[in-house]
């Protein structure tokens, strides 16, 4: 039964045998070897340390997304991104077959990529490459490396990559299920991620701190900040229970500067409020900002603007990390050059803004407080549904639509929430479905939406929402009628 309780050693070890045997590269992985590998890693290649230092020094670290099918090519790619692109942190983005545990298909993808002389996979199939293959990646580069994916059941992936020396692991039982899967029951993915978190907790117990990062942006499409914040907090609570101590909560740009700054500010405060105490005051809490995660403009000059606009929000809000997009976003997996361009353009904005501050006449504070209240609405209902247990509460909440992610593919997501932009481009809630937002909050949203209805002379509707989905890719923030 789903519950937020630290996995016992017995329960963990029994699972572990089964997990390691799902694919040949897992067989015989010894935790001690992983520990040794992790202990060999110099401190400046530790992701957790980098995030902590960034918080202390008020720095913003840049990280791209990148992954190709073959080890050698992947290493070249990462080296290019750190040397030419100046990435502070490196990714290893996993291909979509591996994310679905379809290792046979990944194997075929590797073979066909070898034949084609170019990657036919959309990421690095880490499980197929095994511990030794993954270690080559980690050892070849100077910066800390993180596994980035979208895997409902990432137990084997975690076993292999952590044993190989990756020092951070993205994802969570909700954020890597609801936006990434169709039929995986939530209880199942939460359980799988409790295993992953417990694995990290075991490293932690042996003095090795691995960074964990719930995936903030979810579907990347008009997700109101409070939705992703609540899910991030839940995944944080689940991770901490399993012993995780370095935790980075994420948020994907919404597009209105005030709302984005407010969202990052509130996320930081919420993390402290909800996660510090359960960790016995020990958790190292940081935030990550994702540049616009929805549809991008096709034109590269316009894509640069979207990247820059995200960087501006981050420059004022100062998260510890930015996940950087590229001018190729709308078209396909970026070339390494395009990826480096994304990094450079972001860096230039950040350094031009480094000393600048913004105090939006209290509007940022007001919006942040609104978000915190919305999150409190949700968290209260989740805990009530779980009778105090956040894991059970999360499962029940998704069933009841009390947690609800817009446009998600999962059949376990209600899909009743409809977000929409207001007349200044803030994301608001048009239809709340079963979200337990209080009346005053909803009245506020409705009033803001009404302003837009009046300005456009049309009622809010699904057409308006569709216009909002397309807007940025068509060069606007708000999907105004043509």
């Amino acid at each position, binding site marked *: 039964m789903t519950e937020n309780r630290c996995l016992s050693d017995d329960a963990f070890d029994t699972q572990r045998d089964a997990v390691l045997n799902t694919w040949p590269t897992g067989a015989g992985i010894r935790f001690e070897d992983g520990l040794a590998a992790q202990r060999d890693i110099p401190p400046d290649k530790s992701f957790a340390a980098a995030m902590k230092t960034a918080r202390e020094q008020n720095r913003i670290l840049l990280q791209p997304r990148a992954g190709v099918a073959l080890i050698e090519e992947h290493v070249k790619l990462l080296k290019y991104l750190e040397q030419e692109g100046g990435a502070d942190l490196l990714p290893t983005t996993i291909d979509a077959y591996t994310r679905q545990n379809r290792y046979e298909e990944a194997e075929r993808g590797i073979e066909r990529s070898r034949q084609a002389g170019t990657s*036919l996979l959309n990421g690095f199939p880490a499980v197929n490459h095994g511990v030794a293959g993954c270690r080559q990646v980690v050892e070849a580069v100077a910066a800390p490396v993180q596994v980035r994916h979208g895997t409902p059941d990432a137990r084997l992936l975690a076993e292999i990559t952590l044993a190989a020396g990756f020092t951070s692991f993205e994802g969570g039982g909700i954020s890597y299920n609801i936006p990434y899967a169709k039929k995986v029951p939530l209880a199942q993915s939460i359980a799988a991620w409790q295993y992953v978190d417990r694995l990290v907790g075991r490293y932690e117990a042996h003095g090795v701190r691995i960074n964990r990062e719930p995936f903030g942006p979810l579907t990347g499409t008009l997700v109101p900040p409070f939705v992703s914040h609540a899910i991030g907090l839940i995944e944080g609570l689940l991770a901490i229970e399993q012993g995780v101590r370095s935790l980075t909560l994420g948020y994907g740009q919404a597009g209105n500067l005030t709302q984005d700054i407010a969202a990052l500010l509130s996320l930081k405060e919420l993390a402290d409020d909800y996660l510090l105490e359960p960790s016995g005051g020990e958790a190292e809490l940081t935030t990550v900002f994702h540049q616009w995660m929805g549809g991008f403009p096709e034109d590269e000059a316009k894509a640069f603007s979207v990247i820059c606009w995200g960087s501006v929000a981050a420059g004022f809000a100062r998260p510890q990390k930015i996940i950087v997009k590229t001018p190729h976003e*709308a078209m396909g997996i970026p070339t390494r050059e395009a990826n480096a361009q994304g990094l450079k353009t972001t860096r230039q904005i950040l350094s031009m803004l480094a000393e600048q501050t913004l105090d939006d006449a209290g509007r940022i504070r007001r919006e942040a407080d609104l978000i915190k209240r919305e999150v409190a609405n949700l968290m209260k209902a989740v805990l009530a549904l779980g009778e105090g247990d956040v894991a059970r509460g999360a499962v029940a909440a998704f069933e009841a639509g009390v947690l609800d992610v817009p446009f998600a593919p999962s059949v376990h997501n209600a899909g009743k929430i409809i977000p929409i932009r207001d007349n200044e481009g803030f994301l608001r809630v048009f239809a709340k479905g079963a979200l337990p937002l209080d009346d005053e909050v909803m009245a506020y949203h409705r009033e803001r939406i009404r302003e837009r209805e009046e300005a456009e002379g049309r009622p809010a509707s699904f057409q308006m929402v569709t216009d909002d989905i397309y807007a940025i890719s068509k060069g606007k923030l708000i999907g105004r009628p043509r």
Partner: protein
Amino acid sequence: MNKPTTVVLGVIGADCHSVGNKILEMFFADKGYHVVNLGVMVSQEEFIHAALETDARAILVSSLYGHGEIDCQGLREGCREAGLDDMLLYVGGNLVVGKTPFETVERKFKAMGFDRVFGPHANLEEAVALLEDDLRRHAKSD
């Protein structure tokens, strides 16, 4: 048309991109089609099975995540084997890995047996006009 034409819609392979799929469903339904939307992560077998079951005239395949080239191979042959000789096959999205000139992509997928190929910024009004056209032509040859 008395009875609305049925089309099967879905995102092929291990692809989870659901936003475009939801929009396409609404769009084609709005245009008067009966849309059987299989959602994301649909296998070739599921597409063919649904087309058989629902007497569909066209299968609209999406692929966004880059594995389209691998996932779509054999769909035309599968249709033929299932006796769906006349089935219209449309495909759209970010069909291959990496930014690629559209002509190259189109050639590739037409060679695989797709009737129409669309990029990620496809104009849906144009797509539906083509579909009407193709359906009319197919009807004649029936």
